[in-house]
């Protein structure tokens, strides 16, 4: 378990080199990915459903990236893109291709899984992005001033 989480940190940092993340944000991005993966593993053990695990961990990652972006004054995508990477359904895509070649009846299962995980991630990003865009309606601001 510990090895898996450490692996996630180094994997995300290595991926940051590939996408040319500014050097000073690499550790924070790696932390985002690591926390997201830890939450994913935990939720997978508790709930036994990949889509719920992906949803909860993507929510954590997105919230964390928005907070980091505001604290460090950097674009949100600096942390969101590397952070989301561990939970992207690469495995399901591979298993789809494998099942397709073997003419296995699991093809639709894996395709379903990939779409569910992708949908969960999308939903989480949608949700957190819109929460952080909220602001007080104008009438409240005015009443404060007067």
């Amino acid at each position, binding site marked *: 378990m510990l090895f898996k989480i450490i692996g996630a940190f180094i994997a995300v940092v290595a*991926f940051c080199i590939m996408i040319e*993340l500014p050097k000073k944000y690499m550790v924070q991005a790696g932390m985002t990915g690591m926390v997201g993966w830890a939450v994913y593993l935990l939720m997978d053990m508790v709930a036994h459903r990949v889509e719920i695990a992906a949803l909860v961990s993507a929510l954590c990652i997105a919230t964390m990236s928005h907070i980091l972006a505001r604290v460090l004054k950097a674009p949100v995508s600096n942390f969101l893109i590397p952070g989301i990477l561990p939970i992207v359904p690469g495995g399901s895509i591979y298993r789809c291709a494998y099942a397709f070649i073997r003419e296995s009846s699991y093809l639709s299962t894996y395709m379903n899984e990939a779409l569910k995980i992708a949908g969960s991630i*999308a939903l989480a*990003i949608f949700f957190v992005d819109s929460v952080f865009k909220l602001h007080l309606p104008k009438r409240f601001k005015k009443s404060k001033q007067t």
Partner: protein
Amino acid sequence: MADGKNVSKSLERVVAETAMLAGETMLIAGAEISRVEDTMNRILDYSKCESHTAFVLATGITLTLDSDEGLITMSKRVPERTTNINRIYLINNVSRALSAGKMDIYEAYSEIKKIKDVRQFTGILYGLSFVGVALFFTMMLGGDFTDCMVAGVAGLAMAITQWALVPFGFNSFFLNMISTLSMALTAVGFQRFVFANMNIDLVIIGGIMPIVPGVIFTTAMRDTLNGDYTAGVSRMLETGVVAFAVAVGVALAYVIL
């Protein structure tokens, strides 16, 4: 094109060219559409003209600036796309310095021109990042020592294939497919001939991670949410095309071996 010292061009013209250059660089680097438009508008504000518009699609840019000497309109097709977050970050900083008055437009233009080709990591380190991603993703998914080492070698095969093929100008679909193929061939070859009981699934999942379109997917989602539906749809399509290339590459390796 304007260079910094050319004073014969009007200010508006230089502003428009700077905004276009900034937008093009950001779009190639894979920024969200709303961020590109926001940055371009911030640069166009510098001209103090009454109205200006930057209209950005996933594959091209149009800008209009209503200046005193008439309308300036420019459009540019942007067929290239990569991921380079550093450039997005730097241009964002330049545009903020420009609107805060810490920089004039000629400085900004030459600065952006420099950023257009900036690379933080080149050569060996870039190649090693493929190895690192493959190796540690396998570790992350729970592979043992043998799996991780084989994944590292497979990642190296992918890096070498990319290094060898990019100068020929292969299009991205074939590049992705062939580098996945060489990666998967290495992994399957190791399983057939060396380590019969290694976990081939984890090795291949780790190995395809450098190419799996996680970055484009995230950007597509954020574009869609911001109301840039054309960019969202075209990036989702790009995700599908890349995923298909990966699937074909892996499948071919199983067919061959």
